[in-house]
């Protein structure tokens, strides 16, 4: 049985009323039924605003930083991937475990807005609601209902998600999800890229990254980008020119990829945010894959695990003679 908005509301209401939490970070319905907006509650009065449904894409973890200094404990709802970024925040002492209360929601996949509209050939205004029905979604339209296969309309990262259940939480709402049926090779995308010739690789990324408008949405939405002052915003030294050209865009995206190395939990927010549809996960997943292959490391699982680039093994691979 999947958790419902109603369940969630009662759970959070109780948390407010028994004084467990003073604030709660969740989702509310957005401009249309395929959008949600982050929603911040300071009490149970407006509990009705809270929703949980298969369009709750946003990773809310980063908002915990904004509530660092509020009195009392902050509640937050997290999916598997969101919870993994909470693990990373804890690892880097960005939040205090005792000051947050984590409501875990097992998640069996989030709707990719554009895919859904495409596949069903509809406009968002026609959609009333989307329900999780295991391997498919039940989409209620203004004129009747339709079922659609998850595999066709899930967000890409959900299609390879190995952590549908939050690794850290204080309470769990809804039953845990067993291994997701559609999950294939996490790295097929990366392998296909690796297989290209150097020339082809360059051509590919030049095409993609020349479209970047450097709005920094990928950085700002990233739950592990927590620097109070990012190096890209520094005046001295200037790591990157404000001029928007392919050369500088490459610098930006390479350094960005490196900065989330061993920290990225593939929540896919960067790619969702990117207005230019640049395949950022294709970069992140590469680093993720190397971290796994070289150092047998996966981010966002265990708070105690030391970040791979802050440690070493004497018998690490050495290809540099």
């Amino acid at each position, binding site marked *: 049985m999947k958790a419902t908005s109603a369940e969630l509301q009662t759970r959070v209401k109780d948390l407010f009323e028994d004084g467990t939490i003073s604030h709660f970070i969740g989702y509310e319905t957005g401009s249309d039924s395929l959008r949600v907006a982050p929603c911040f509650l300071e009490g149970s009065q407006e509990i009705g605003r809270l929703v949980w449904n298969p369009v709750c894409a946003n990773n809310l973890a980063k908002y915990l930083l904004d509530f660092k200094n509020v009195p009392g404990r902050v509640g937050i709802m997290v999916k598997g991937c969101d919870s993994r970024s909470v693990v990373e925040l804890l690892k880097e*002492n960005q939040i205090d475990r005792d000051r947050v209360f984590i409501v875990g929601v097992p998640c069996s996949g989030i709707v990719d807005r554009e895919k859904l509209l495409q596949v069903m050939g509809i406009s968002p205004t026609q959609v009333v609601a989307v329900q999780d029905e295991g391997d498919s979604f039940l989409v209620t339209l203004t004129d009747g209902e339709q079922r659609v296969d998850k595999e066709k309309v899930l967000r890409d990262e959900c299609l390879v998600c190995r952590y549908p259940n939050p690794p850290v939480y204080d309470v769990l709402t809804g039953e845990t999800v067993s291994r997701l049926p559609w999950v294939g090779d996490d790295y097929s995308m990366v392998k296909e890229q690796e297989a290209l010739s150097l020339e082809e690789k360059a051509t590919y990324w030049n095409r993609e990254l020349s479209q970047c408008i450097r709005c920094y949405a990928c950085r700002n939405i990233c739950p592990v980008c927590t*620097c109070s002052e990012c190096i890209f915003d520094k005046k*001295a030294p200037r790591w990157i020119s404000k001029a928007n050209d392919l050369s500088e865009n490459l610098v930006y995206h390479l350094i960005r990829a490196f900065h989330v190395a061993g920290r990225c939990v593939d929540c896919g927010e960067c790619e969702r945010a990117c207005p230019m549809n640049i395949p950022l996960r294709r970069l992140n997943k590469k680093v993720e894959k190397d971290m796994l292959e070289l150092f047998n490391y996966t981010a966002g699982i265990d708070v105690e695990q030391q970040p791979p680039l*802050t*440690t070493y093994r004497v018998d690490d691979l050495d290809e540099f003679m």
Partner: protein
Amino acid sequence: MATPRIGAFICHCGTNIGGIVNVPEVVEYAKGLPYVAHAEANLYTCSEEGISSIKRAIEQYDLNRVVVASCTPRTHQPLFRSVCADAGLNPYLFEFVNIREHCSWIHREHHQEATEKAKDLVKMGVAKARWLEAQQEFESDIYPAGMVIGGGIAGMSAALNLANQGFEVHLVEKEPGLGGRLLRLNRIFTIDKDPRELVENIVKAVGNHPRIRVHMPASVKAVSGYIGNFDVSVDEDGQETSFKVGVIIVATGAQVLKPELYGYGESANVLTQLDLEEKLKDGELGKFQNVVMINCAGARIPERPYCSRVCCMTAIKNAALMKEINPEGKVYLLYRDLMTYGVEFEQYYRDAKEAGVRFIRYTLDALPRVSGTESVEAVKVYDELMDMEIELPCDLLVLATPLIPNDDNEELSRMLKASTGDGGFFLEAHVKLRPVEFAMDGVYVAGTCRWPADIRESIAQGYAAASEAMIPLRQGLVKVEAITAVVDPRICKGCGTCTLVCPFEAAGLKECEIRGLEGKIVSEVNAALCKGCGLCAAACPNGAIQQRGFTDVELMSMVNAMSGKR
């Protein structure tokens, strides 16, 4: 920061540089570089003349940065820094450019290209100099006491040496008695003396010394702090005692390998040289008709490639002794190569031969083989000279096995941040330049915990370590080169990455006390612990922690200069 006024001094170094690099051209080029207020050539910048010329220029052109392009900072940086200091300029406003070792000497046939390269290097140095900042060196007091870990011959020598110089010494020995492995020996080679004579005097001297406090049986439980201020706690016979010292000498010794070779441990008549000595010492050993000794047992093999250095002499000593005990008996010494360096060692070897010890060489690809039912009765060995395998009757087999590191080295190494090298022996800071110091300031090494050594060497190393340790103790104050890391609490997010990568636990998370940032958790660097490696600066995600003299701005300005960016 006042507008940089950089002075560039380009050294001819006689013809070393001037003979290849067109120095006047480089000087002219330097004059055109940003913030360069003065550039000149010197025949030898490090000469009296060059030095006074720098001082004059600082005065005359009101320079606030100095760049010298000559040889290598590894030899001359201290000189030029002090020149700046003498001229009233903070020594850290100096930047070194190497156009000799890294340019003229390696491009002798390419004058034009060498000149272009020299220009680039000067441009890079100037670009960095523009960002240099004055630095203050960290100073801290030295607590006038030392700890010596290990009460063997090396440790006792070190302890006595320190104490006799007037310093308190804590000597920590894990056994209930002092003396170490020496006490287990029968005789000392070349002088053929009973080690006890030697040891007992020293032990007495140590025991009666007013300034030496012996802890035993005791083991070091924890060490914190840094040179001049180590807090040590030891477990002394079950109770915890703690004390403060300024320096630490590691002289924990080594152990003898007990091999699983040639029937050792299975048959009663197979011993190590050490076992043999103990038996001889206690007079438990009868006469033997056929004694076979095998050297390099478990040494100089792939998994233990080093030579244990003392075994050859030990074996020769005992071979001769066996011959002495039973002149009719036969003594065979099977060896791979003999280490009998120096005058008296070589003589000692000859004497053993004279005495009738038979030396037979074997090789790694044809190891001796033992045979026999209960005990080893014969040893087969391939004799190179006769080009055939010969069988030696054997009623006593003695194996010369190597010294191997103590099992607790790793633990001690973690506590003291003193590195260990291949195989687990301790590793000094520099094999030639700093042979008895660790990279970790205030910690020194002596004796066989470093490497197999004989008594003489162990004593010498003990003295050496003691006198090295004495330098800071005497100075009473230690200065740390100001290339240490520093945190900007404004942008530090307290993620702790620096604390994870720091090999010296110099960086730690603390509540900030600066006005406006009270209570913010940020990283803080203990300058006394910081060794100035810059690992933290490279690992910090947003440059909140920087290494003085190697900041991001300074390094990037060099990279940009090289790329033709300004």
